[in-house]
């Protein structure tokens, strides 16, 4: 069920993405029903969770890490916020999005985010949590940049991704450290290992890294600046991601890992200090915003700071208050964002210098916004008041250095006063304070359904604020209990606690805040206050520009633009890296324990001949490199000797492959050489030749020494397993082929994909490319297509095709297989091409890419077939059916896989070879081919 809860949004997201953008209602219904289905699943889980159970569901994933979820009270509470507010946001967004906004894309992103967020809160191990954490960053990036034509949306999205994604990387590092300390990533074990973690020497770096992840995500100072810039997102996104859920990831992590990482001085000062600074800073800056959403963004920063501070205070009661405020903030801030979105939607502006006196135009929205603002300011009868009172109580109860005990409550009260000030401004400046200035639309109430989500949330705020024990009591109890991972402290949820110090602080803050706002308004007219000079965005931009400049400077220091010099560096570094360990330890004792048969078996005079010819060819190719055709012939000769060497090394499959690849490589090189200078000019810098020769010599001698050293040692390979299991498990006697198509089939699948991609790149580079006129011959070159070659080629093709099929079929048991068969067929086809010029119909140009794709598909589907039958991916099945005439055919599903390899190899080779061939055809011939 937990898997369904997390994976359902992803599945529906994929479905929604496929819907046409005209299906506005269908996409919204799907998204809304998904969120409601999540709520329903949570309802099913609720009895167990409220009984104090922890639900678990887990399937093995990789390397001991499970793809598993666990739901305790805390996870349940966050999941409930995600699903419930998700449903309201979907309803709201249905009316918010303009006709030209693509709803399919929007709701697909939103659902993907919902799934990622549920994954974060439900993950049962830290690795999975980090994975979903990054997914929330990515979906947030996509949603902020939803209006991709707007520069501020793109910049805001990029900045959010850089900050939260970078923090996510820190989190991954921190998680790895925690996992190293505990010996497991499993959340249950991590939470139980708190004392061991705090005592470990790596505690401080692990904590700091995890906190970097949490602080960036929850927009804590000094990483807060991405959040105001993320306000370029559509308002439903701001309400959902950037106030109610995603930014709560960080504080969720603090709550989640508090039993494991909390309870130290470091935690107290870093988390508490960051929270305190963020709380005061965000509240102060919020007062001076002109943008409605900017005000709410800084207010969110401030409230996140408050929650962080509560977790930093490091007492059980503070954790209860922190969890409570998460719930309250989600409700009132989401409703405020939605109200701001309604104002924006119905007036066309978010600027508080234009928005004034909207009370008369939209009284209902104004009332709703005022109640929610009351919760934001923390006035009685609304939910924000209760958690604020708990916060004041905890701030007063701080037990630390004397100065800290004074600073925390004072700053808390001052920040609360600022909070009242910006809340009053939000209400007064938008709904009263004169008349609207230069609005493009006449303001009016929004569509009925657009207001429903706001109304629901405001009712929640009031219900919690007036009857806390009945409404939110049980939920808070299970959430706090599982956050504490221990017994719940004594606390009372009630509106009235009598006259006490926290109440006095509330009264002072409210009066002072209201007074401060009207004083500011009178003294310096808030509408004229310019942007703050110290803007996080500017710092961020400066850092990015600096990084760019630094990178450019480093690049200028490197040998850029010169392939040979870059290569020389790479080779030199490789030589040094290989020489270093050898220089330190030497080659070791060359205790020659001969493998059976001895290294001297099987190589006699023939070996010497092959060796001499191969070396002579390689040296000749090097010495005559300026005569390119000659050098090419010598390289081909060296390749032939290499394939003969494979024969001697008892590798018939390799010999065949090398031989065929040699043929197609030489043909291809000759085709290309057709367009390149036939000779290279003499090199002017003689010292470079000598320098290069030194590098090359070092490389050659080094490799030779390494090979010599390796061959002098006994081997203890894993290969016997393959030899033993090839026939019983793979159904083939040719072990090399069985390894390729069965044991290591996944590698092969990747390799044919690479082969296909390379061929398609070649095609893309050269297709449609016209040789510049300056390189064209004045008169078309008469084709050199001798009849003899033509006849031979045509006769050869069917024979070659037959041989290819034979090689393909027998490959599982004797030398052959998809690679070799494919190369045989391609060689014969290319001979036709060489002999006949552009005799092939143009349709073949489309056949080859299709063959590549079909091959990869066949191979992949064969693998999936085994997965569908419950075996691991690419497990092979086999039998030996007897066909009429042909006789017994060894038929393994691996043969089907090999067919895929065959198709890809044929397609890729042909596409590669034909691409320059199209250039080679004279212009007239090209025209004829295309016209046919």
């Amino acid at each position, binding site marked *: 069920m937990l898997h369904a809860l997390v994976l359902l949004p992803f599945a529906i997201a994929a479905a929604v993405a496929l819907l046409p953008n005209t299906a506005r209602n269908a996409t919204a219904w799907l998204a809304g029903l998904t969120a409601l289905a999540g709520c329903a699943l949570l309802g099913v889980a609720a009895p167990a969770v409220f009984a104090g159970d922890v639900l678990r569901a887990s399937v093995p994933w990789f390397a001991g890490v499970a793809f598993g979820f666990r739901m305790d009270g805390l996870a349940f509470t966050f999941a409930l916020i995600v699903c419930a507010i998700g449903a309201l946001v979907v309803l709201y967004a249905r009316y918010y999005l303009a006709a030209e906004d693509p709803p399919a894309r929007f709701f697909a992103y939103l659902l993907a985010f919902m799934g990622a967020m549920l994954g974060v809160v439900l993950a049962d191990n830290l690795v999975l949590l980090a994975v979903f954490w990054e997914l929330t960053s990515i979906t947030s990036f996509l949603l902020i940049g939803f209006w991709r034509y707007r520069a501020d949306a793109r910049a805001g999205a990029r900045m959010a991704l850089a900050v939260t994604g970078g923090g996510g990387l820190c989190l991954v590092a921190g998680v790895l450290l925690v996992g190293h300390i505990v010996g497991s990533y499993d959340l249950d074990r991590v939470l139980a290992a708190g004392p061991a973690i705090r005592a470990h020497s790596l505690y401080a770096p692990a904590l700091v890294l995890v906190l970097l992840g949490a602080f960036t995500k929850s927009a804590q100072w000094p990483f807060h600046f991405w959040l105001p810039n993320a306000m370029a997102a559509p308002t439903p996104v701001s309400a959902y991601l950037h106030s109610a859920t995603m930014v709560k990831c960080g504080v969720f992590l603090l709550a989640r890992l508090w039993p494991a990482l909390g309870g130290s001085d470091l935690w107290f000062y870093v988390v508490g200090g960051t929270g305190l600074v963020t709380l005061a800073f965000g509240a102060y800056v919020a007062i001076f915003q002109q943008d409605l959403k900017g005000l709410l963004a800084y207010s969110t920063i401030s409230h996140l700071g408050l929650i962080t501070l509560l977790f930093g205070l490091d007492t059980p009661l503070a954790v209860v208050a922190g969890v409570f405020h998460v719930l309250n903030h989600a409700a009132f801030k989401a409703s405020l964002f939605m109200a701001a979105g309604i104002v924006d939607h119905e007036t066309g502006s978010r600027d508080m210098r234009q928005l004034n006196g909207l009370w008369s135009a939209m009284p209902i929205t104004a009332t709703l916004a005022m109640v929610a603002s009351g919760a934001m300011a923390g006035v009685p009868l609304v939910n924000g008041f209760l958690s604020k009172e708990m916060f004041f109580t905890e701030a007063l109860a701080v037990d630390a250095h004397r100065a800290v005990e004074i600073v925390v409550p004072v700053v808390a009260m001052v920040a609360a006063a600022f909070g009242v000030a910006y809340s009053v401004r939000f209400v007064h400046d938008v709904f009263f304070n004169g008349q609207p200035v230069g609005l493009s639309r006449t303001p009016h109430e929004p569509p009925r359904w657009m207001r429903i989500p706001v109304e629901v949330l405001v009712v929640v705020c009031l219900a919690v604020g007036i009857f806390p024990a009945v409404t939110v009591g049980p939920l808070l109890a299970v959430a706090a209990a599982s956050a504490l991972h221990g017994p719940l402290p004594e606390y009372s949820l009630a509106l009235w606690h009598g006259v006490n110090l926290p109440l006095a602080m509330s009264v002072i803050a409210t009066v002072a805040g209201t007074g401060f706002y009207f004083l500011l308004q009178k003294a310096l007219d808030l509408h004229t206050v310019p942007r703050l000079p110290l803007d996080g965005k500017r710092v961020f931009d400066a850092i990015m520009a600096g990084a760019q400049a630094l990178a450019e400077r480093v690049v200028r220091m490197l040998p850029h633009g010169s392939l040979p010099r870059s290569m020389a560096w790479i080779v030199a570094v490789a030589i040094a890296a290989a020489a270093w360990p050898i220089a330190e330890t030497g080659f070791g004792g060359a205790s020659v324990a001969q493998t059976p048969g001895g290294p001297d078996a*099987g190589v006699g005079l023939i070996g010497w001949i092959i060796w001499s010819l191969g070396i002579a060819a390689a040296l000749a190719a090097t010495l005559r490199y300026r005569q390119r055709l000659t050098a090419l012939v010598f390289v081909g000769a060296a390749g032939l000797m290499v394939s003969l060497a494979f024969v001697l090394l008892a590798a018939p499959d390799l010999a065949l492959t090398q031989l065929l690849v040699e043929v197609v490589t030489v043909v291809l090189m000759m085709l290309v050489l057709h367009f390149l200078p036939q000779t290279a000019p003499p090199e002017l810098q003689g010292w470079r030749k000598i320098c290069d020769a030194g590098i090359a010599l070092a490389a050659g001698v080094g490799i030779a020494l390494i090979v010599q050293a390796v061959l002098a040692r006994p081997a203890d390979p894993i*290969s016997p397993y393959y030899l033993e299991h090839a026939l019983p498990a793979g159904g083939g006697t*040719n072990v*090399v082929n069985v390894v390729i198509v069965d044991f290591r089939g996944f590698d092969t699948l990747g390799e044919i994909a690479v082969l296909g991609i390379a061929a398609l790149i070649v095609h893309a580079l050269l297709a449609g490319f016209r040789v510049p006129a300056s390189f064209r011959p004045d008169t078309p070159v008469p084709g050199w297509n001798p009849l003899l070659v033509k006849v031979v080629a045509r006769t050869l093709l069917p024979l070659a095709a037959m041989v290819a099929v034979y090689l393909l079929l027998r490959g599982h048991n004797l030398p052959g297989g998809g690679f070799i068969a494919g190369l045989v067929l391609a060689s014969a086809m290319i001979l036709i091409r060489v002999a006949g010029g552009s005799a092939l119909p143009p349709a073949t140009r489309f056949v080859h890419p299709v063959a590549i794709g079909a091959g990869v598909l066949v191979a992949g589907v064969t693998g999936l077939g085994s997965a569908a039958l419950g075996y691991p991916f690419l497990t092979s099945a086999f039998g030996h059916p007897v066909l009429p005439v042909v006789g017994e055919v060894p038929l393994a599903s691996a043969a089907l896989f090999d067919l895929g390899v065959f198709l890809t190899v044929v397609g890729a080779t042909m596409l590669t070879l034909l691409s320059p061939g199209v250039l080679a055809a004279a212009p007239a011939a090209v025209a004829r081919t295309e016209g046919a």
Partner: protein
Amino acid sequence: MTAWLIASGIGVLTATGTWLLLRARTFDVPLGLTLLSYAVNLFIVAMGRVGPGVPAIVRAGVPPSLAHYADPLPQALALTAIVISFAMTALLLALALKARFVNDSDLCDAPVDDASPAQDVDPAPGRVGSFAR
């Protein structure tokens, strides 16, 4: 002696391949890469040791062990490596081809001082393909 033959063969292929790889003109690079890939593929196979010199094709009656067959695993790795190196060579050749026409030169080396862009006269004293400039 066999070990020495293999080692020196791989060494020579590596050295010649590397030297060609360091030339300043495009065509020599795939040429060098081809020689280098011979060396690498031989190297991979050699890592399986020389063995008894019998292909790894299981026959009835012969126990499936390394005492009786060549090591199949490096061979399987080298086989796909051969094909992939062909693909990479092809890619380089396509780049070389296009670079020649786009840059009007087959140089892949930048001038030392960075002051001026590549100044190179196409070395076409004789026949350049079948096309004269």
